[in-house]
């Protein structure tokens, strides 16, 4: 089996539109969650979201922009960043040995929402001619492939909140097996339409607004946690055959060494300790890592009652006594839940934490819940901590649990 390097990172996120900005804000614990002020917000119980400061005009010519839902815009710009960061020369590569693997939970949902407004609310048949092209879930991946002429597999994974952990893991498997040399992998999501927010709200999964400060409304692992806050954005990584990366002198952000995917197959929303634990174990096993070797876990940590208790129990089941020693970061507290892009964003944050030797904080955690009794790095980052191996958890409605394990490039290569 081949080793797989991460040689490029691209992010468009509520915490910033570059890896450096994302990491600085995450380490500082700055929350991007805000009260949103659209006219329809008065029909939401808690009009909260983590929005991206982004204008498509700055990145696309108008005729092309007209064909791109916001989710595709995010994906393409993040992919450009990642490919630029990796200094990949795709036109001169064997483009059939390059693949696109993208996760999204809701695809071009804003386009669909707009079309429904026109059809049902305005009783007009004048929906946009590009509604299908903009709304289809594989549009973000397709546009990336078109922009770079990538002729290998162009695949879209939709497993709700684990979509982009799955896309990265599946890409990793293809490179590891020798089927591909390079993969552009990650996720994108743009769910912040009225329809999108309302649909999540009526499921009773969203946080109520903290009256003292809306930015602190998402409180993973807290006694007073009330749910998650939706966010938007994209995170893309370039995965590459290790030897190829070394030969071309690429900068390696980390080595992806493990991927576990296990399905609950029990309930459409309710997570299970067994399923989450099995996915963590599977990732550790394929990575040939002892549980004790994990230095930091980026938790799924949604801030919902169900997830945080179950995830804590699952971590205890896998790590035993080590569970109380391993620092756990729940960064959704400040960047929100990017649904299909969350797994990729948190994987990127895990890599950045490892590169900088900084344990990212779980913000807004004043009093932990009784059954959430691990070290969640509450409210303040820890610097100068030696982090060699990280785990990133993503668990989803539908029961698809996906876990990624990565280690520092320096650990194996002896280089920074």
């Amino acid at each position: 089996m081949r080793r797989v390097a991460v040689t490029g990172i691209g992010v468009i996120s509520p915490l910033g539109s570059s890896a450096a900005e994302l990491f600085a804000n995450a380490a500082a614990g700055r929350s991007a969650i805000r009260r949103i002020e659209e006219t329809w917000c008065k029909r939401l119980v808690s009009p909260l979201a983590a929005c991206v400061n982004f204008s498509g005009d700055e990145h696309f010519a108008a005729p092309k922009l007209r064909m791109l839902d916001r989710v595709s815009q995010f994906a393409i710009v993040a992919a450009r960043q990642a490919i630029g960061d990796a200094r990949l020369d795709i036109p001169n590569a064997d483009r059939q040995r390059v693949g696109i693997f993208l996760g999204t939970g809701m695809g071009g949902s804003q386009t669909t929402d707009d079309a429904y407004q026109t059809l049902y609310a305005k009783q007009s048949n004048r929906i946009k001619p590009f509604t299908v092209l903009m709304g289809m879930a594989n549009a973000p991946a397709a546009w990336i492939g078109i922009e770079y002429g990538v002729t290998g597999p162009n695949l879209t994974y939709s497993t709700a909140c684990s979509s982009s952990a799955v896309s990265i893991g599946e890409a990793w498997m293809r490179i590891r097996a020798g089927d591909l040399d390079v993969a552009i992998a990650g996720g994108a999501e743009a769910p912040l339409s009225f329809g999108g927010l309302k649909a999540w709200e009526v499921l009773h999964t969203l946080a109520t607004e903290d009256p003292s400060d809306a930015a602190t409304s998402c409180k993973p692992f807290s006694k007073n946690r009330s749910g998650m806050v939706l966010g938007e954005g994209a995170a893309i990584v370039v995965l590459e055959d290790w030897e190829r990366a070394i030969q071309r002198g690429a900068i390696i952000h980390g080595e992806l060494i493990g991927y576990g995917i296990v399905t609950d197959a029990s309930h459409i929303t309710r997570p299970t300790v067994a399923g989450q634990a099995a996915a963590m174990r599977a990732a550790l096993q394929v990575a040939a890592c002892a549980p004790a070797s994990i230095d930091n876990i980026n938790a799924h940590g949604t801030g919902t009652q169900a997830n945080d208790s179950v995830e804590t129990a699952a971590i205890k089941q896998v790590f035993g006594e080590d569970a109380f020693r391993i620092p756990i970061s729940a960064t959704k507290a400040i960047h929100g839940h990017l649904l299909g892009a969350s797994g990729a964003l948190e994987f990127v944050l895990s890599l950045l934490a490892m590169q900088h030797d900084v344990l990212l904080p779980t913000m807004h955690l004043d009093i932990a819940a009784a059954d959430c009794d691990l070290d969640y790095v509450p409210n303040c980052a820890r610097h100068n901590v030696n982090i060699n191996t990280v785990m990133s958890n993503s668990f989803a409605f539908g029961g698809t649990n996906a876990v990624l394990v990565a280690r520092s490039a320096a650990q194996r290569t002896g280089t920074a």
Partner: protein
Amino acid sequence: MTTFERLSKILVKNYKVDAERITLDGPLEGLGIDSLGMAELLFFIEDEFKVQLPFDPVALPTLGDAVSYIDGLLAAQQGTETQTTADVPAPAPPHRPA
């Protein structure tokens, strides 16, 4: 306002085309509107000129072709209330996106 001016306005507003680049004989593809983009341009034309185009998309390689086509439609509509747009001579065969 002429048909050309009204079409130019659509191109400037929706496609951010520099007005100075818009000519009657220049290819629309050169302005970033390919055969797929044409589907949307025809949608805007319907709104602007209050005409109903045939269901099958039409190929209008240049703005001049579009002007002639629209003028033909408008003339047909004004000529007889019973005449339908389908009776207007179609320009080139349509391109259907896959």
